[in-house]
């Protein structure tokens, strides 16, 4: 940010909100200098903790304050980056051009609940776990359970088109949104959701990653808290058989809440993960696949660092064991007791017909118990100089296996890859690839990391896939937007010009200037 724009910025902002809620302290600038983009974590491992600090951080409490802040930014030509909880994994909140970091978490009120229409309205800075908790204690659920539910906000979900673990039943965030309050890039406050003519603005602001405006409030569809959860595990010989079963199930009109099929390696990890002793509190959450990721990490490192002989042999052993295990499918229904019971019956018959082996409820329940565990395990990987990241792409059933093979091959050239299939729809499914790689040198680790993404996404796009299913674009995939959208990018650029004429909203993201 040019010094001229910076001078007096804090004083100007003090016209918009209380000085106690403006900071340019070193610790604040450091804390807001990155999100959870794994490429940034490689840097952290090498001591680079603040790759991209903002100049100022502000904590507005009302929509009016947000609008006033944006107007200050427009007047001074200073970038504004909306910040939810910084759990994004794409660098979407990195203030690469400096400027104002606008943290929304003080706007976290529960505004309204309509039990008849089954909608609820929240301010967007509310953290997921708090939001769900507020609904649950009133007898409802949003049905949105991203693995990051503890560390992400409603605004971030909307801005990045998030998906939860029960998306097959409740949909992704874009399926839930009913209306938004948005402060556009010119500081104007608008409410969407009431429109009957023209573009569906909900769907324009959803996914905009802070580049078009700040979402301050949202009304979302909710559901009654489920009466039952019927979980079950299945084993299939190969991913293709499991996928075929899921497809048939959904196309017959069944709507399980949870559908996850792990490929051979991921199944192996999932199994290992649940064999450990139970720890944590009161049996609610227990440790995740410590041993499993350890093995994987070592395996990956040995691939990356060829001279580590014994480890390389261990890795080969791992692959060998893995290829002999089948694929685990976890499937669960939730909702009305009578409906779910019937759905499960029909569904079970379908899965048996498709060649599935019924493993009973235990693996399903275990998965439910451990559903958020895996994320705790990344620390060790990074600490050892390796990296782990996930690539979530989607396509229609017709192209799914092709995309699976293509991405696995492409990324597998650089790192160790495994995958599970979650977020299934009647017309297609998303694939969640996890890849682990590494090098002891930062430059080399970053090079490998970039190669994984470059080759993986080209492969996905080439196989009629999307560039992202639910993590968004941010910085990491900005270079792929053109390839994903083709000439339609012209429309996105036009939107940007119209809604953010000063070009101050989260510049450099989504492949926009």
């Amino acid at each position, binding site marked *: 940010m040019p010094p001229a724009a910076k001078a007096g910025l804090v004083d100007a902002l003090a016209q918009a909100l209380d000085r106690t809620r403006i900071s340019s*302290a070193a*610790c604040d600038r450091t804390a807001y200098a990155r999100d959870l983009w794994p490429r940034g974590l490689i840097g952290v491992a090498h001591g680079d903790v603040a790759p991209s600090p903002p100049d100022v951080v502000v904590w507005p409490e009302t929509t009016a304050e947000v609008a006033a802040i944006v107007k200050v930014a427009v007047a001074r030509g200073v970038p504004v980056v909306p910040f939810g909880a910084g759990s994004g994994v794409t660098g979407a909140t990195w203030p690469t051009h400096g400027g104002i970091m606008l943290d929304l978490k003080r706007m976290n009120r529960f505004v309204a609940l309509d039990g008849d229409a089954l909608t609820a309205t929240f301010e967007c*800075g509310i953290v997921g776990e708090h939001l769900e*908790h507020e609904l649950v204690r009133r007898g409802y659920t949003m049905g949105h359970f991203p693995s990051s539910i503890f560390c992400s906000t409603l605004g971030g979900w909307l801005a990045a088109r998030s998906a939860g673990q029960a998306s097959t039943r409740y949909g992704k965030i874009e399926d839930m949104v009913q209306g938004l309050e948005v402060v556009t890039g010119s500081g104007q406050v608008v409410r969407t959701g009431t429109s009957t003519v023209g573009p569906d603005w909900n769907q324009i602001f959803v996914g905009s990653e802070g580049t078009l405006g700040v979402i301050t409030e949202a009304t979302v569809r909710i559901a009654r808290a489920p009466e039952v959860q019927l979980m079950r595990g299945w084993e299939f010989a190969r991913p293709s058989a499991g996928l075929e079963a899921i497809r048939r199930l959904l196309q017959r009109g069944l709507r399980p809440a949870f559908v996850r099929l792990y490929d051979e390696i991921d199944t192996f990890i999932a199994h290992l993960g649940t064999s450990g002793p139970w720890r*944590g509190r009161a049996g609610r959450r227990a440790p995740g696949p410590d041993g499993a990721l350890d093995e994987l990490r070592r395996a990956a490192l040995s691939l990356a660092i060829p001279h580590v002989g014994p480890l390389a042999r261990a890795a080969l052993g791992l692959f060998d064991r893995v290829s002999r295990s089948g694929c685990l499918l976890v499937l669960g229904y939730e909702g009305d007791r009578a409906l779910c019971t019937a759905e499960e019956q029909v569904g079970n018959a379908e899965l048996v017909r498709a060649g599935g082996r019924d493993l009973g409820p235990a693996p399903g329940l275990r998965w439910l118990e451990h559903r958020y565990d895996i994320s705790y395990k990344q*620390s060790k990987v990074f600490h050892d100089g390796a990296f782990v990241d996930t690539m979530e792409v989607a396509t229609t059933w017709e192209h799914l296996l092709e995309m699976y093979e293509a991405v696995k091959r492409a990324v597998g050239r650089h790192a160790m890859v495994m995958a599970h299939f979650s977020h299934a729809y009647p017309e297609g499914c998303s694939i969640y690839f996890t890849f682990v790689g590494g090098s002891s040198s930062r430059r080399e680790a970053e090079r490998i990391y970039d190669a994984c993404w470059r080759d993986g996404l080209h492969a996905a796009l080439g196989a009629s896939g999307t560039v992202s299913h639910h993590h968004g674009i941010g910085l990491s995939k900005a270079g792929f937007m053109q390839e994903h959208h083709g000439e339609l990018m012209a429309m996105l650029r036009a939107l940007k010009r119209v809604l953010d004429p000063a070009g101050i909203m989260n510049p450099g993201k989504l492949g926009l200037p």
Partner: protein
Amino acid sequence: MLKPFDRQLQYCAYCPKLCRCACPVSNAEARETIIPQQKMQFLHLLHRGQLSWHHDFTQVLYACAACRACTSYCKHPVDVGPALLAGRAAAVAAGAGHPSLEDFDFTFRYRLPKLREAARAQLPKARFSDEAEGAIYPGCEAIATAPGDVLRTLAVLDRLGADYLRLFDGDELCAGYPLWAAGYSDAFRAHAERVARAFRRYRKIVCGCPACVHVLRRRYAEVGVRLETEIVDLTEFLEGFIGLIPVMQQVPELFFHDPCYLGRFLGNFDGPRRVLDALTPRRYEFSWNRGDSACCGGGGVLPRTAPLTAAAMAEARLSEVVEAGVSLLATACPTCKRRLGEAAARLHARDGGTAIEVLGLIDVLDRATS
């Protein structure tokens, strides 16, 4: 000093902030800088020498109530609160402690004889004994701010037939939690030794404050101080009387707030509930309860380092009681009682509505048995 926390610091440094939603301090301030993961990352960097020990950065170590809510959400699990307190000790050693805690070791020592004077002035002299089978040790918070509570404790104990418990007599009326929390580790060790010596005169100490109990049982051992005295938490002690309590009248419906130190540190979630259930027809649970309970803001010397935040935490905790329109809130820790009581008064003065009365377990027993 930080060596034992090496591994935990590494976990947090790369963690995707999974416990952030639990931290009452960062929830109150909504500041990314002080979520558990960031506080630990700063400590990690300070420890590794990648940041210098300067208040610019060490300040984040003080934005913690040492409440362990984050640990409930951690799979490893990392004990963030104590790690940050160890970080404070390192900061103090490096001359980068918190300005509001300057010379805290000195003021602490200076305060002890005053506490004793206060105790002597307000509590029945006859009850003090410098040597006994069992003694009651009310904790500094109660003596300094609520001597009436101590009197009530004695009355209830008498009614329960525990009149054999004497009052601890000595200068060491504080177990040293504030020193530990403020990061004055040398002073803490020295004080612990003094307390241990004083305690030798008693076989069993019933302690009115669960934070004291934790410090006595766990933190003393950590600094190499061994206690020969049996330490019993007051709630634990009272549990022994369930079924024997001479209940004269039931107490109206009430909420119960889990004190962090009783619950997450001592692991006693059911005890206070069982006692209360013998005294009231209806006990409400906060929706965040037991291991997920939200701190009242009183821990970690937060009221000194961030008074506004601490106050906001207490008020936030009360919102559910206000919403339910219930007028009694019970807890089992003198600090919680005080912080929540003050917040309730503030809320009532500001917003009107039902006045919430905050009671200790003893107060509830007192009402039920008189």
